């Protein structure tokens, strides 16, 4: 874990989601809400299309940070607001980009701010990870 200066980008990546990613996440997580794999249900409840699970976006966002952290056990707290939908097109999928930046540092913890975007729009609000920085 290096580069703990406020404003420093410590990790970033772009993940390409497809409908298969959503089915895989549904199976792995147990979240079988049909709005994540059925166009007809998504349309019926007034959505613009099949959506990525918010928890998939949240999960892949924090994983961007783990190789830099070195140890998942450094994560003390992680919270997000789901502010915008990630619509996953049947053919084109959807790209989700994550930038992890140091937001604040104190004696034993740091706040890492995640900026998570899809189609040039921020999709997670106040996506913050508090991490332990001692030994």
């Amino acid at each position, binding site marked *: 874990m290096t580069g703990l200066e406020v404003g420093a980008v410590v990790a970033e990546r772009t993940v390409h989601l497809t409908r298969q990613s959503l089915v*895989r996440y549904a199976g792995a997580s147990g979240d079988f809400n049909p709005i994540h794999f059925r166009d007809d249900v998504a349309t019926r409840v007034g959505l613009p299309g099949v959506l990525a699970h918010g928890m998939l976006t949240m999960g892949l966002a924090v994983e961007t940070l783990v190789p830099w952290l070195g140890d998942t056990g450094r994560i003390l707290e992680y919270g997000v607001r*789901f502010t915008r939908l990630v619509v996953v097109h049947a053919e084109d999928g959807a790209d989700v980009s994550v930038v992890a930046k140091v937001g604040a540092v104190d004696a034993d913890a740091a706040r890492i701010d995640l900026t998570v975007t899809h189609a040039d729009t921020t999709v997670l609000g106040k996506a913050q990870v508090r991490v332990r920085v001692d030994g």
Partner: protein
Amino acid sequence: MNPELVGRVFPPTDPYLVGREKVREFARAVFATDPQHTDPAAAQALGYADVVAPPTFAMVIQDLTLQQLLAEPESGIVLERTVHAEQRFRYTRPIVAGDELTGRLQVTGVRPFGKGAMVTSEAEVTDADGGHVVTATSVLLIGGEE
């Protein structure tokens, strides 16, 4: 949505045994690339007994508790009209393969929102020794009936 659910504490879920292959499956699903999630030797080098689950794996246990809420005949919640608004995890330690975890759900808030309601709930996840592992807090936006 039934406002009388506020303060309700549900019975603990049946113990969930975290399997190594389940952790690997979940890691792949969230595009986790670090070997601590898939390689026992890498996890052991960090001091863990077995592979370490990605941070949001706690949702699998939280989801078992939310199923209890959805199953309440009086809750008025329809899954496909439910939107996840906020999520937070507070960790004492990461989840590791071999853990036997139990979740206990408490509904901490219900407030009207449009035709529906915002429901806040907390799932406290503990291990076989009763030790705290993680508390998962979620805010769900429950749509009203059409």
